[in-house]
């Protein structure tokens, strides 16, 4: 016989020490068994180092992308059918434009907060790709990709590629003059693939360029298919992160077998939720004050028109730069053509680059023969070869990015386009080659000095009652108390030992200069 509970006090007593919330959790646990896992989740420790925040920027700008993107789908019309623009922007009034272009202009001017949402969406995309790249740099230069995290490195690289592709598809949707030229270039790049290029191009565009299918097809890829894959991979990325736990920099109390930092609940949850608001807020401020992609100034896409200084969004810059500076080497023979001037910079080069990035953990392991589990991070200067290789690739991409504005540089500095082009060709080869030894040397020098990378501490000057001035060194900064660069805490790579002179090497293989 169950007891009949009819007083409030009795109800309270029966509900246990944690009240109604406790009771609700019990009900949930009865059905789903969440208590143990939930507790572990709330106790998950997040390292306090600032560099772990970079991935959060990517995650939260993706949240902003989803939210603002849903808003945009409510007003955007993915159609290349022609219509007469009769909206409020007078310079376009009465022009024949596509539905896609007209609806984008309309949602910018006629829908309340539409312009803000569109600019936020565009800015969030630029931030998203940027944050992924910077986050990737952190993971690369600190060796966070090593065993057991190689899979997450590959997932992350795939996310970068998908983010770039979806960014391109997204800025193509308004069907304005600049983005239409971008689609035209993409079509020609696909066409350049040997053997199957023309078939792939015709199948993707539903015929010869421009056709009438590409905007609807880009639309469904941009709003459904690719975001769905990104969402799934983000889930896998974070699932693996929870399963394998965070890496951390070496320091007091930090070992290969623990994680030191703040717990998920409440500390990290408060900080990260706050940070999500800040990312969204910063995006909104950019959307308010920094105009981006004013398509009504570009006008609708017409295949025989073009504007000057045609540059894509920043993350496509390295490809555009590669296309600009690559020489005009076309292959004609046996009745066939391989447009190497397009295939090499726009198909083969990014193919090699991204495959190299994905395979890096394997490549590095081949050289170091290091098959251990790594949960403590490297200080970049302690891994000079990896750091130098990473810097060289980054310098190459940066130079190609700069090369994507040869015309603007030539006009701005009043120098000939020819000189700019040849300078960029030389620099794109020379600087990455120079970057490697320079970085290597800097790394080795930094290893030699115990205080390298630390901030100088100030002196606190006090006056005694007698009028005497005393200068006492202030305590070191909290972050610098952590001896994350001490080589003792870092597993020593085998490949460093070999090329160090015996007389200056310690048994750890790290030079120490007397101080």
């Amino acid at each position: 016989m169950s007891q009949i509970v009819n007083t409030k006090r009795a109800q309270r007593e029966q509900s246990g020490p944690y009240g109604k919330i406790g009771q609700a959790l019990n009900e949930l646990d009865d059905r789903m068994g969440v208590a143990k896992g939930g507790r572990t989740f709330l106790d998950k420790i997040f390292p306090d180092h600032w560099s772990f925040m970079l991935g959060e920027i990517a995650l939260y700008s993706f949240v902003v992308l989803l939210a603002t993107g849903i808003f945009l789908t409510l007003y955007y019309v993915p159609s290349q059918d022609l219509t007469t623009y009769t909206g409020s922007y007078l310079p376009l009034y009465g022009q024949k434009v596509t539905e896609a272009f007209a609806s984008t202009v309309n949602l910018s001017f006629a829908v309340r907060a539409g312009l803000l949402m569109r600019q936020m969406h565009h800015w969030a995309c630029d931030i998203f790709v940027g944050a992924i790249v910077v986050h990737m740099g952190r993971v690369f230069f600190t060796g966070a990709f090593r065993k057991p995290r190689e899979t997450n490195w590959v997932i992350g690289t795939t996310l970068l590629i998908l983010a770039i592709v979806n960014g391109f598809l997204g800025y193509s949707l308004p069907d304005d003059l600049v983005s239409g030229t971008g689609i035209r270039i993409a079509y020609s790049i696909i066409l350049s693939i040997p053997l199957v290029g023309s078939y792939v191009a015709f199948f993707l565009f539903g015929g010869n360029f421009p056709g009438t299918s590409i905007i609807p097809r880009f639309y469904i890829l941009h709003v459904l298919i690719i975001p769905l894959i990104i969402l799934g991979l983000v889930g896998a990325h974070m699932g693996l992160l929870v399963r394998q736990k965070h890496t951390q920099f070496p320091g007091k109390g930090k070992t290969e077998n623990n994680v030191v930092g703040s717990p998920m609940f409440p500390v990290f949850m408060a900080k990260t939720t706050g940070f999500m608001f800040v990312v969204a807020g910063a995006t909104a401020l950019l959307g308010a004050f920094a105009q981006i992609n004013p398509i009504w100034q570009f006008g609708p896409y017409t295949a025989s028109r073009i504007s000057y200084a045609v540059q894509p969004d920043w993350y496509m810059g390295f490809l555009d730069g590669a296309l600009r500076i690559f020489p005009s080497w076309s292959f004609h023979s046996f009745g066939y053509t391989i447009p190497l001037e397009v295939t090499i910079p726009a198909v083969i080069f990014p193919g090699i680059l991204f495959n190299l990035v994905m395979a890096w953990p394997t490549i590095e392991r081949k050289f170091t023969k290091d098959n251990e589990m790594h949960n403590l991070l490297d200080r970049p200067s302690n891994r000079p070869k990896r750091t130098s290789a990473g810097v060289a690739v980054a310098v190459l991409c940066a130079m190609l990015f700069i090369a994507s504005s040869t015309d603007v540089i030539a006009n701005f500095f009043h120098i000939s386009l020819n000189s700019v082009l040849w300078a960029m060709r030389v620099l794109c080869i020379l600087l990455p080659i120079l970057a490697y030894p320079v970085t290597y040397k800097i790394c080795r020098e930094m290893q030699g000095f115990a205080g390298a990378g630390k901030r100088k501490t100030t002196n606190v000057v006090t006056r005694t009652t007698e009028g005497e001035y005393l200068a006492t060194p202030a305590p070191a900064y909290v972050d610098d108390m952590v001896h994350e660069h001490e080589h003792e805490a870092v597993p020593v790579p085998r490949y460093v030992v070999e090329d160090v002179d015996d007389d200056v090497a310690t048994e750890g293989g790290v030079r120490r200069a007397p101080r």
Partner: protein
Amino acid sequence: MSEHEQRTPVQLNTVSADDPRLQPAARRPELVEKVIAVTFLAGIALICGFGACYWVNAAPWTLGATFGGGLTLMGVGLIAWGKYLMPRGPFVEERHTLANSEDDRNAFAAAIVERGGGVIKRRKFLGGLLGAGMGIFGVVAAFPLIRSLGPLPKGTLFHTDWVKGTYLVDITGRRVHSDDLAIGSIVTVYPEGLENTDNGQAVDQTVLIRLSNEDFVTQKGRETWGPQGYLAYSKLCTHLGCPVGLYEQELQLLVCPCHQSMFNVTNGCIPQFGPAPRPLPQLPLQIDAAGYLQSQADFNQPVGPGFWERS
């Protein structure tokens, strides 16, 4: 600051409530609380301001400023709350090896190899049939998925709509007369009737330039192609198909604004600079009895960027 030196990581679940590591990180929590409260209040005010701006349909930048400012302030307050008013730790969590015991691993591998392998080895024929069926299904299913997407290229990329006797018209559809252009002028022309079609715009687009009053010969074998100094070239850059939209009159260059390929108008648009590998195809022109410009034939070679089948 110096007290941070003693910070020792501690197990989260073994800390007692009076442990100093559970105390807030701020030295003056009351002050921090007030600052955070002010931040939150300012954030709330801005978010209300966003509502007001939206209501009265204010300028877009006010919407963004209030919305973004409000969110940022709320976020900064929340971060400060987490950073200064919550247990400062640091806390430590043990890491357990991901790998399972040897027995578990063996049992897992045995389940796959012995159970699965045994079944398949014993029924190799069935396994082969199943594999073949799936393979054939994959290939057959790819047909409607991929083949239906578009037509085959066939000869499309080799020809334009220019044929013998097609009149050159400008974007408004007006025929170009031999008296129309002054020397040094340029106009984009299309085959008559196709000036407003996708194909006319994207494939047939042609630049018409007048260089002189006399017939102009760009290359050997093109003696009749430039009557009265009129020259016509495909407007599609041979690099990536952008319209070659810039005309540098002093140097007689056509310049592509996309990747700065330059073509010399006087010698048959041979590329002089940049990544374009081939000359712009030239359209042979003639002038009819009434003085209107016509094409003699299609371009002498496929227009636009390179592709595999192009010889």
